[in-house]
């Protein structure tokens, strides 16, 4: 079927998500390492490492992004979110040095999307994270655009494999 007429809801821009976008829903399903800052009574079965009835304060576990966003409060009484490896100092230096080298698909298919969402959690490194995301995109953009415009009849799967899902151009 010719797909011109099927226009799905596109993902949100920057820190916003589009409620009905399938891409944003899948993006927010990604898991993040968190630490609980309060007790969660009667939900012990969610955290399978212990048999406790409650989730005690100070538990380290993984929660999906949507739940972390929903529960997070500025005063940190509920949970604190750890930055995933890719957005920390070490990897940021790699990205700043040469954005084109990295296999973004291996880093998790939603590098830009997840990175933008991480800005919701008030990390002190937020300005640096935002800066790195932008510079990485700018750095890779030229090569991505070039490949997509000049890939007539060639097999581009090797190239596309290393791209983040936002950049997977047809």
């Amino acid at each position, binding site marked *: *079927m*010719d*797909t*011109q*007429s*099927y*226009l*799905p*809801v596109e993902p949100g821009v920057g820190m916003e998500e589009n*409620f*009905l*976008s*399938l*891409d944003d*829903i*899948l993006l927010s*399903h990604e898991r993040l390492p968190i630490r609980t800052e*309060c*007790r*969660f*009574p*009667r*939900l012990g079965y*969610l955290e399978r490492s212990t048999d406790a009835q409650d989730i005690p304060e100070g538990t380290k576990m993984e*929660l*999906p992004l*949507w*739940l972390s966003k*929903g*529960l997070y409060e500025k005063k940190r009484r*509920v949970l604190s979110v750890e930055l995933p490896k890719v957005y920390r100092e070490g990897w940021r230096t790699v990205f700043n040095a040469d954005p084109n080298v990295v296999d973004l698909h291996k880093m998790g298919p939603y590098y830009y999307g997840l990175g933008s969402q991480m800005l919701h959690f008030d990390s002190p490194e937020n300005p640096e994270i935002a800066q790195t995301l932008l510079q990485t995109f700018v750095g890779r953009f030229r090569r991505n655009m070039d490949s997509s415009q000049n890939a007539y009849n060639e097999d581009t799967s090797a190239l596309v494999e290393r791209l983040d899902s936002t950049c997977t151009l047809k």
Partner: protein
Amino acid sequence: MFCEKAVELIRELHRMTDGQLPAFNEDGLRQVLQEMEALYEQNQADVNEAKAEGRAELIPSIKLRHCCLLRNQRCLTAYLYDRLLRMRALRWEYGSVLPANVRFHMCAEEVQWFSQYKKSLASFMRSLGGGEGLDLTQDMKPPKSLYIEVRCLKDHGEFEIDDGTVILLKKNSQHFLPRWKCEQLIRQGVLEHVVS
């Protein structure tokens, strides 16, 4: 973790990037609604307990279950909405009569929505062109000529054109036909425009 089934529904649709409509996952929908009922009941019980006995420490759990309810709601709404978008695309690509195998994939309410959409589109198209009507679903690309050379890709049986001539569409046969008659069949993949 909660809301796994709901995300499965989303993945089902996300996999079909070409706009195809998969079968309506009634089972999946029912499971998500059941999970929502269970969460809601647990929350009601906890809220009553928190209010009656002043147990404020139950609130984080209540909030968590509430997030799960909202998430399930989001997934279901997005699932249903995306299916509507695909059905709308079908009207523009296939025409107002859908092939039976596609209609099987739609639930009763979706069939109803589709027929109402058809009616709205038809009355809109009738109102154009000064009361004469204009078929917007034809000529999606600017036409270059009145008659076109087409090759048949599959057996489609007999096909009648405006002057009464009946043409037999057999696989690999070539014909010279008026463009407006062929457009639907080209989009369905039965005919192929031969550019020599």
